[in-house]
């Protein structure tokens, strides 16, 4: 009976003031992460064998199609280089300052909260590498999430697809502002900020807008797969289960994030 009361009191404390157990949770992360990291290579290989076999099916057609796509891509790359050169020149003319985007640490996604309705992942870099709570995590393909617990060897990342992960975003192309919120099952919900006609089309890519100062702008988040009445459901581009390396970056606007973390900690 006493255990029940102690448990409820501790649960209340960790809901009201999550920081109170931060160090204990960090130590627990450090203790389990090496096991997870060591075994991850095995499961990745096994998974790769099965998905890799599918690629051999119809390989000739696939090859022809990929070659064609590559030709198109090369043209696009040349165009993009020209645009980015022009962009840089225009920015120097306007004297805009660019934020330096050096990563804090790189690591691997080694585990996840596979038996809970929340979507967390275990990341193989921690406080010893400079990872702090609140930093954004991304891979080459897109945004993965943000750090919510940091041990010294490992950290816990709130994934883009978690329900509590709300990201200000824009549609790539027309730049219309939208909000991305996870659905807890590996997909995200997209809602336009302006009420009106549904702005999404299947295949649209959504990128971060940088609003709020936590996530850097122009990082890809998700691709629209289905429309619903006033928004869309999208699949994150960076799939944590197949991401080999990910990097932690500094918050885009550190001052804004310090404020935001304080606020969200109280709200949780």
């Amino acid at each position, binding site marked *: *009976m*006493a*255990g*029940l009361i*102690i*448990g*409820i*009191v*501790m*649960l*209340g*404390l*960790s*809901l009201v003031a*999550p920081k109170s*157990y931060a160090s*204990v*949770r960090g130590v*627990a992360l450090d203790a*389990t*992460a090496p*096991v*997870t*990291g060591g*075994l*991850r290579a*095995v*499961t990745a290989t096994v998974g790769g064998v099965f998905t890799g076999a599918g690629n051999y099916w119809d390989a000739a057609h696939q090859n022809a199609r990929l070659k064609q796509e590559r030709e198109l891509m090369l043209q696009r790359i040349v165009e993009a280089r020209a645009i980015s050169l022009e962009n840089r020149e225009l920015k120097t003319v306007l004297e805009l300052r660019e934020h330096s985007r050096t990563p804090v640490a790189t690591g691997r*996604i*080694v*585990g*996840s*909260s*596979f*038996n*809970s*309705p*929340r*979507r*967390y*992942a275990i990341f193989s870099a921690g406080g010893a590498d400079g990872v702090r709570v609140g930093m954004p995590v991304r891979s080459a393909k897109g945004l993965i999430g943000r750090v919510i*617990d940091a041990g010294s060897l490992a950290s*816990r990342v709130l994934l883009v*697809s*978690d*329900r*509590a992960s709300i990201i200000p975003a824009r549609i790539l192309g027309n730049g219309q502002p939208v909000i991305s919120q*996870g*659905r*807890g*099952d*590996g997909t995200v919900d997209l809602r336009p900020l302006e009420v009106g006609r549904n702005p999404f089309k299947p295949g649209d890519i959504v990128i971060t807008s940088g609003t709020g100062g936590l996530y850097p702008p122009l990082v890809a988040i998700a691709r629209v797969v289905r429309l619903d009445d006033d928004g869309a459901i999208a699949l994150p581009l960076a*799939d*944590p*289960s197949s991401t080999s390396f990910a990097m932690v970056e500094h918050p885009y606007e550190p001052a804004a994030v310090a404020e935001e973390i304080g606020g969200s900690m109280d*709200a*949780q």
Partner: protein
Amino acid sequence: MVRAALAPHRNIGKGPVAGASLVPAISVAVASLLTALPIVSMSGWYPDFGFMALIAWRLLRADAWPAWWAAPLGFFNDLATGHPIGFSIALWTAAMLALDLADRRTMWRGYWLEWAIAALLLLANEAAEWRIAQVMGASLPFLTVVPPLLISVLAFPIVAWAVSRLDRWRLGR
């Protein structure tokens, strides 16, 4: 009859293994640690191994561990799985109390009744996880509880079988 008595019987001379009284608690802690397995899932439908091992042991034996051990085991589970600290402490202690009540109220126990009790407790676990996620700002529709609940209810007989084998091994039977 005589022949059977003369045949070498492997149970003779075999007693409980060393530390047999600790085996249940250790096996629950190991089941909690299964969340450290490097599975990156996007659905979260895997069962809560620690909780299933706990109720499987408690349904098998009333004296698997002193009742208050549920709290430290729950604390360990919270640390391993990343639930908010205190969640499993409260839930696991409540489950022990509920099973004490069930022991007192049920006249007879069978396979189906035990499975039904376990299913109710697993439903309570999933619903509590759902409610805590909602309080923490991740409000999902309640129907998202159904797939993981079905999976853990169907997986429970496997856990119960593993626990009964472990019980026979620790007692040297």
